[in-house]
């Protein structure tokens, strides 16, 4: 069964550094998402992406964050200047037809540790 893959599985970075988290969504899916989960807390929406543009974003997704689908297969999340509070598990997800009609398929996440 096709799956969403995320790399790396674990990223350690110093405060103030830029990180790029990478995702390969399921190939025929049209909707893409990033979520994050701080340890012991709930899964939080960051951003949704459709038709090569952001369709929605949360208040967490400020100017430090950006997303890109550079080549039709990868979907990336960039954090420009990481803060300690960015430490979390970041999940990429994709959906064939959007959450109304089809489930979200999640990857197994990238654990980001900011020191």
């Amino acid at each position, binding site marked *: 069964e096709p799956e*969403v893959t995320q790399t790396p599985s674990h990223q350690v970075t110093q405060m103030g550094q830029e990180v790029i988290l990478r995702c390969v969504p399921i190939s025929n899916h049209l*909707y893409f*998402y990033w*979520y994050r989960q701080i340890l012991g807390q*709930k*899964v*939080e*929406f960051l951003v*949704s992406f*459709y038709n090569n543009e952001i*369709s*929605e974003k*949360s208040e967490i997704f400020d100017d430090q964050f950006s997303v890109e689908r550079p080549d039709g297969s990868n979907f990336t999340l960039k954090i420009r200047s990481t803060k300690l509070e960015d430490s979390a598990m970041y*999940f990429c*997800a994709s959906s064939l037809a*959007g*959450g*109304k009609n089809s*489930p*979200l*398929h*999640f*990857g*197994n*996440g990238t654990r980001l540790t900011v020191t």
Partner: protein
Amino acid sequence: SQKIEQNSEALNIQEGKTATLTCNYTNYSPAYLQWYRQDPGRGPVFLLLIRENEKEKRKERLKVTFDTTLKQSLFHITASQPADSATYLCALLGFGNEKLTFGTGTRLTIIP
């Protein structure tokens, strides 16, 4: 503010019994409700989707109900097995948007 609450942080159920998990929401008019399973260190895995005009959905040993008057969904696992032990998340989606919002989750343990 919008809130999605799941009945308890942890629930222990004897193997073979039915586990019932509750999802309550306030200040929200969801069009769609989804249930996911999350194992430690893994991403959520989709289980069931129910629309606001549907009362009940079933899939094998799973059943979901959606009561928009009570603002509540119930998730049942019948004939529970130790392999059903996981955290279960409910998630709501409103009309006209793609922001799937998750509840806090219930950690279910099935005791052999």
